[in-house]
């Protein structure tokens, strides 16, 4: 009798401990998905294409209903979000930290700048692809080294990349333009784009708008691919490597190869992000790829919830929209322009601290944790009811 009573309560206590708080956002369970009630189709491809289509419609609406200034902000958001998406896969799902993603973005940006500098530049998709490939090559090199390192050592090694790589641009200033950097000739919008905008909203199809669209297209494609990987066995294997090395190895997983793969995928995203950055900012200069950029990306994914693509997007949005918001707030409180501008980093720091205190798993991660705990509690209650029924 007493035995029966004690067992559900003991198990109930076990429920309270949250599974790995820090990476809760990463636990987009691939296995559970089909069991969940959902209006989305079973096939991963159809599912993700549907979400892709919905997001595209949403993005067009957003871009057409906002001002040109907001358009350029959204363009900025796209390259942050592309890089953050890649980083969240690496850090959140595979457990590798990288302080060097700014440098990988630089590789993409300089590739784009160099290729567009030619008298007869290659078509834009080819340029973007080349930028991705260059970043992938560097990422593979770093990844091989990274696969052997852990925690602070890995952070140190990638930090060296972040500091060192942009330095190359200054050293080889004849090719890369030194401190001044390289101007990027953004390609003209195709006519199809102008007629598209004309049909959709009748707005002025400016080059700012074209670049915002270009960034959005790159963002959607990147997230589509990343989401596919996350949901597949690739994502599961990455998480296994992150959670328990020895057990993963005993399951036949070659730890090093899978870590390098994660680094390469992440680098590909960073390379594309760099290319988009170069087009949007129209400049590839060392000052654009400082350590601050790498750190901003890390804070973005932590704020959003490690390992979650939606979280990476939210975190990036915060990164882009919070500073101007804080500046306007400051101005409305009667601060002059310099003072108001100084408010931005302060507000950002406060938000970061508040989030870490109240939702330590990030926005998306915390929601997932809640849902997981609720489910576990329900299962426990069910088990307890069963036990009572049997008695």
């Amino acid at each position, binding site marked *: 009798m007493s035995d029966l009573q004690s067992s559900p309560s*003991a*198990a109930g206590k*076990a*429920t309270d*401990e*949250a*599974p*790995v708080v820090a*990476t*809760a956002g*990463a*636990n987009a*369970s*691939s*296995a*559970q998905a*089909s*069991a969940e009630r959902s209006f989305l189709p*079973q*096939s*991963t*491809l159809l599912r*993700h294409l549907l979400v892709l289509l919905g997001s595209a419609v949403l993005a067009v609406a957003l871009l057409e209903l906002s001002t040109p200034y907001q358009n350029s902000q959204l363009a900025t958001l796209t390259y942050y979000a592309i890089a953050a998406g890649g980083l969240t896969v690496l850090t959140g799902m595979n457990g590798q930290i990288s302080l060097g993603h700014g440098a990988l973005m630089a590789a993409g940006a300089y590739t784009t700048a160099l290729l567009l500098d030619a008298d007869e530049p290659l078509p834009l998709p080819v340029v973007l692809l080349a930028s991705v490939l260059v970043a992938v090559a560097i990422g593979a090199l770093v990844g091989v080294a990274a696969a052997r390192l852990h925690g602070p050592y890995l952070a140190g090694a990638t930090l060296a990349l972040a500091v060192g790589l942009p330095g190359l641009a200054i050293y080889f200033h004849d090719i890369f333009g030194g401190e001044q950097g390289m101007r990027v000739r953004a390609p003209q919008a195709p006519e199809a784009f102008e007629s598209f905008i004309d049909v959709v909203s009748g707005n002025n199809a400016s080059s700012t708008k074209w670049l915002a669209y270009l960034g959005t297209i790159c963002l959607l494609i990147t997230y589509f*691919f990343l989401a*596919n*990987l996350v*949901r*597949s*066995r*690739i994502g*599961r*294997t990455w*998480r*296994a490597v*992150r*959670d*328990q090395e*020895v*057990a*993963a*190895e*005993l*399951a*036949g*997983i*070659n*730890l090093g190869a899978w870590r390098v*793969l994660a680094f390469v995928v992440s680098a590909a995203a960073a390379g594309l992000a760099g290319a988009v950055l170069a087009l949007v900012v129209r400049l590839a200069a060392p000052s654009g790829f400082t350590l601050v950029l790498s750190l901003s990306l890390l804070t973005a994914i932590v704020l959003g919830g490690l390992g979650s693509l939606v979280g990476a997007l939210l975190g990036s949005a915060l990164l882009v929209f919070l500073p101007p918001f804080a500046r306007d707030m400051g101005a409305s409180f009667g601060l002059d322009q310099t003072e108001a501008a100084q408010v931005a980093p302060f507000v950002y720091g406060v938000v970061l601290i508040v989030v870490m205190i109240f939702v330590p798993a990030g926005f998306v991660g915390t929601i997932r944790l809640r849902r*997981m705990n609720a*489910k*576990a509690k329900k*299962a*426990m209650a069910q088990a307890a009811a069963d036990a009572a029924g049997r008695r």
Partner: protein
Amino acid sequence: MTGISVAFGGVLALSDVSLTVEPGQVHGLIGPNGAGKTTLFNVACGLVRPTEGRISWRGEELRRLRPAQLTSLGIARTLQGVGLFAGMTVLENVMVGAHRHARAGFLSALLALPTSDKDEQRLRERAMTALTELGAARYAGRYPGSLPYPVQKRVALARALVSEPDLLMLDEPASGLSEDEMHELGELIRSLAGRVSVLLVEHHMDLVMRVCDRITVLDSGKQIAAGTPAEVQADPAVTEAYLGDAVDAEADAAELTNADGGRTHD
């Protein structure tokens, strides 16, 4: 394994130990604390490289064995403790165990091709079968951290079994289990025998004596006895190794008699 020796620095952890697991048999590996049982296990898994000696599997010598190759050779191992992936559901944990059977490659995953979906479906079914076999199917959607320890052990076992190994290596599977659960585990291991070979490291004499076909006894890195449970129990060297240890003497003596008692009850 023949003539295995392992030296850590100047310390000889294992000296000239040989052990053969016959197909379909349950082989027990016992010995007092620090006897080198886990080291021998790690040698067999490629986690520790032997200083001397050879490891053969199905008549072929394994050179430069790496842990990640084990499952493809048909060898699966559970860890001391449970070693489950905390951030993944029970079902996903077991699906990782089926890694060896995965067919879909990177590209089909990247493009979310139907082959990738089908492959996942197959792995999911395999995993569910293994979980059902171990009576843990109803925990499939839960996270390991929220489950009682014995259930976690079952999940870990399911993860090892789902790779369909020919040799299953169990590292202290009974630790942390109650008397009843240990009994169930014993039945389970017996039911596996014949289908797979089992190599078992265990402290609980009772369990070892009941389920093993053959037993190897280690003490201070040396093999002091080998044979059937009855032979080993009758071996004076074994009794001495266990009773000679002043601290554990009483406990081990009790365990040995208990094991005896258990057998006569059967």
